[in-house]
């Protein structure tokens, strides 16, 4: 009986948490009209997020591209078809790897710091102070962070796509004897579309990262605003923000790919 009660309590807590995340998302969307008053703060947030995540994202993207090219190239060489290595690396980076890597790194660096900042504000009564001044914490604290990551995540993704393809080109030349000219020509052909300027893969990847940016910021802010019980509570909020963000990035990544390639054609 006690076990059932504990399971029930845990489940209820999770559902409460999920409900609060959805509620926070809706309230943030409703506050979008007040964004012009928060432009400076939003740009500060976007700049900080970019600066904090850029170096790690670039290093990880370069190695991810290199690994991707290496793994794929080994198999392609068996079939004597390394000419398409640039195409495969470019499309994989743009569709999946770029958004995924950027999302996970933003969750670990920026999402965690959002949870820590807002959690500390919550446990030290700063959020309550905003409320008693009739300043809506969603409008003042959450909206700029969400918009900042919704902008920065696609920008960082575009950069990590490029750096990943570059990492792949180095491996292609050094380890697989694919000339840079052939690799880049193959990649450029894959990333050119006569109808839409860029191929669908690039747009889907950028859309994914836009959604990831919103999800990471909302989860970070929601975890922070739920924090209670001092430093321990803030630590748990950070842990929850990163864990939930990574899970959601994977799930949303699957859903978006499925939607664009299987449902919407």
């Amino acid at each position, binding site marked *: 009986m006690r076990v059932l009660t504990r399971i029930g309590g845990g489940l209820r807590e999770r559902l409460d948490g999920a409900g609060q995340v959805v509620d926070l998302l809706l309230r943030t969307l409703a506050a979008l009209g007040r964004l012009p008053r928060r432009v400076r703060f939003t740009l500060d947030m976007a700049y900080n997020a970019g600066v904090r995540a850029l170096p790690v994202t670039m290093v990880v993207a370069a190695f991810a591209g290199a690994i991707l090219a290496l793994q794929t190239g080994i198999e392609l060489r068996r079939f004597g078809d390394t000419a398409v290595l640039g195409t495969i690396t470019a499309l994989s980076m743009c569709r999946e790897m770029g958004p995924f890597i950027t999302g996970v790194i933003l969750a670990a660096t920026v999402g965690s710091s959002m949870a820590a900042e807002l959690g500390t*504000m919550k446990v030290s009564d*700063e959020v309550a102070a*905003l409320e008693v*001044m*009739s300043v809506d914490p969603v409008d003042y604290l959450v909206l700029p962070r969400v918009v900042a990551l919704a902008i920065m995540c696609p920008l960082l993704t575009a950069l990590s796509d490029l750096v990943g393809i570059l990492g792949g080109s180095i491996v292609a030349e050094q380890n697989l004897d694919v000339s840079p000219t052939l690799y880049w020509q193959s990649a450029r052909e894959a990333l050119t579309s006569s109808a839409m300027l860029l191929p669908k893969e690039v747009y889907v990847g950028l859309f994914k990262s836009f959604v990831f940016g919103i999800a990471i910021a909302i989860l970070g802010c929601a975890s922070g605003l739920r924090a209670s019980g001092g430093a321990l509570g803030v630590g748990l909020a950070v842990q929850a923000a990163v864990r939930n963000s990574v899970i959601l990035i994977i799930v949303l990544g699957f859903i978006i790919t499925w939607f664009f390639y299987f449902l919407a054609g």
Partner: protein
Amino acid sequence: MIELRGVHKQLGDRQILAGLDLAVPKGMNYVLMGPSGSGKSVTLRHIIGILRPDAGTVLVDGQNVAAMDRTQLMALRKRMGYLFQNGALINWLSVVENVSLPLREHSRLSRHEVHDRAMAVLKTVGLEQAADQFPPSISGGMKLRAGLARALVTQPEYVLYDEPNAGLDPIISRQIHELIVEVRDRLGVTGLIVTHSRACATHCGDRIGILDQGRIGIEGTVAEMTAQDHPLAKAFLGGGAD
């Protein structure tokens, strides 16, 4: 006037307030004392509408706070100031930006007017020299005074003080007490002060109420309370109490 009638509040398994009745007339400083965890801060949070009672009513100038929607609550809060235990300043804003915040958010004043008004209030609390400093670099007493300036900048009718001298040395505490009295006398602000401090209660208060088991155990003027033989009054206001 602030009135609480039969307010009950349970948090988790604990019954914090159990039929609390309290009346704070206009222009008066009412001091609310009681043991730690007796519901003093919870009482303040009901009055400002952060918490809602399980039963009973909380009235400010005859309006039921618990029944207010978001817009009405915002209007009420603009008429109230709240001084948190540690000042609760926003860390990334300077002292003057913290004090300006409610004006920047809610008034139509120009940037210069907001700054001038914030500086005037900072001068009142003796903090104009620290206007450009940030909260992590100022002392606890300065944070409290900045918090008080922020509570006063909108010229509220009521100020709720939550442990205004917690953790402060006697000299800074006395400065804060004098400020609270000045706010009442010069600005005509009604105050509800939550404190453990005998010095704060006797210096700042007009009436004192002591919470006991979720309701007022004993209440009276400062003179009546200090002369009381009641064990609660002795414990909080007797010779050995601080």
